[in-house]
């Protein structure tokens, strides 16, 4: 290796501001698609409660979207939306739908029938029942979907670097640039940071879930 170290720590030390900037970008490309994807999935899941017949078609469509190779999606949207945020956000949002929709529907369906009946019999209105009974009880499965979709999206964001410019890709830009300039330090830096981000976000979401479901631990405690 020409006496050069495999990882150039000095370079990394000199580019910390670059790391912070890419982190911000990566987080933006995580949060916007996740929020949009959850909003769409949630509305579709409520529709599924009212009209169970919609579950099949919606699952099929979100499943089809999920199978589109991300490289192809970015390449196709690039000429349409140019270098606007849409080019990255639309595919990333689409990829969250299958997981988020399926888990949200499963969460609502996991509410035991006797809970429905008790709520109905005591005079809950449909709306109050959804917000106060069904939604809280669906939280564990919904959060499982959010965790999985988040980790997947963090990985996919790195591929968005292919769209070009230095607007997209977050830590993925380190990887693409590293490849183009045969500079392994950047490739490893991009890869490792992406993985660390995924673990961190997942851990934070676990904490959020715990805060939202104190009752679930009570169940575990009884054993």
């Amino acid at each position, binding site marked *: 290796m020409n006496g050069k170290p495999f990882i150039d720590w000095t370079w990394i030390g000199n580019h910390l501001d670059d790391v912070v900037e890419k982190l911000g970008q990566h987080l933006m490309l995580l949060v916007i698609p996740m929020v949009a994807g959850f909003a769409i999935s949630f509305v579709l899941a409520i529709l599924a409660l009212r009209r169970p017949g919609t579950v099949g078609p919606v699952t099929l469509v979100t499943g089809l979207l999920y199978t589109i190779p991300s490289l192809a999606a970015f390449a196709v949207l690039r000429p349409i939306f140019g270098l606007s945020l849409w080019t990255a956000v639309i595919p990333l949002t689409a990829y969250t739908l299958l997981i988020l929709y399926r888990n949200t529907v499963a969460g609502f369906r996991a509410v*035991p029938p*006797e*809970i429905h*009946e*008790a*709520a*109905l*019999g*005591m*005079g*809950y*209105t449909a709306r*109050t029942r959804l917000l106060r*009974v069904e939604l*809280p*009880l669906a939280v564990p499965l919904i959060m499982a979907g959010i965790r999985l979709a988040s980790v997947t999206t963090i990985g996919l964001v790195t591929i968005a670097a292919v769209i070009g410019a230095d607007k997209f890709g977050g830590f993925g830009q380190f990887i693409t640039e590293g490849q183009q300039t045969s500079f392994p330090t950047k490739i490893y830096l991009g890869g490792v940071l992406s993985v660390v981000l995924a673990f961190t976000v997942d851990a934070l979401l676990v904490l959020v879930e715990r805060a939202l*479901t*104190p*009752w679930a631990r*009570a*169940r575990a*405690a*009884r054993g």
Partner: protein
Amino acid sequence: MVDTVHHAATVDFDHVSKSYDPAALKKGAPGAVQDLTLHIPAGKVCVLVGPSGCGKTTSLKMVNRLIEPTSGRILLDGVDAATRDVTELRRGIGYVIQQIGLFPHQSIGENVATVPRLLGWPRARQQARAEELLTIVGLDPAKYRDRYPAQLSGGERQRVGVARALAADPPVMLMDEPFGAVDPIVRDRLQNEFLRLQEDLAKTILFVTHDIDEAIKMGDMVVVMQTGGHVAQVGTPAEILADPASEFVARFVGADRGLKRLSLYRVASVPLGEAVTAAVGEEAIAVRVRAAEAQAREVLVLDAEERPLGWLMTGDIPGEGAIAAAHADPSSPQMDRRTTLKDALSMLLDQDVQSGIVVDRTGRLRGLLTVGSVMDWMRDERSRATADGDNTPPAPAPDPDDEA
């Protein structure tokens, strides 16, 4: 105990039917109901009992309109339930189901306060009411209020279910196999607690069960239903046991209905016999003479407080000196006036004796219960129950000691 004014409503089924189309039946719709007409007086427990598919649960759920009747009307205090806002109607009817359906994500206190919360009571009043009700059903509020349902036993959860149904002091309660999911010992205790509660609350209660013993125990009136949604018989538990209206009812109540009738009545109902007694410290000679005059095989030894200590065979009365406590056979069975005749006879059989010693709450002797007196009394009672078919309640014998 409860600072609200208790009220109960009459419930009337007026030619109520529910039928299902064949498609719904294939999906496992509950039993149909055919032309049910029934008057339930305010403050009474009406038990709907029958095999599965007889329409008992359907009948119950038509009252709070979880199921809408195909035809006919259900009147609560004379008002057609169909004309009322369904949400408001349900908030005014207590509802307890076998699976309980406590909300796992809410604390016990929040669960109990469900209907008050829906009704928009102030928070402090909700909490106070939840604590009051937990106390009523025998759960210490300080201990249980902040727990979650998953941390409770089956019996405790069922108590919370009853407390939740009572929260807004509804005039009518619907209970669908409420004690069906707990083991027999807990069920017996919950039934007894509930009957005691009902003595104070006097709600109008529709109670569904498939268990004839539970129906007999819980009901002021019993409606035996038959597959297809027909009423086979309506009557007091005593009437149904003494005089089943059809072969179906006779089979449903079981061949042991004579024994079941025994559990409807308490020792207090039966005239008690007199015992030849001997007080501790009394001269043995005097006792011997008294026993001989009465031609008694045995005398009952009492202590200074007139509490029976046990039997003493006439032949074993000492020739001289005084009667001592040690002379009495301590194994003689004692029963109080609340003991059911079924339990009383069972004690006599177990102990192989002719007479049971009946004591009052303080342990003082009230008299003797014999197998013969029970049989004579039951024969008379049977002719009373079947004589004119009137609807007088079977008088599940209140405790006479309570009246004192």
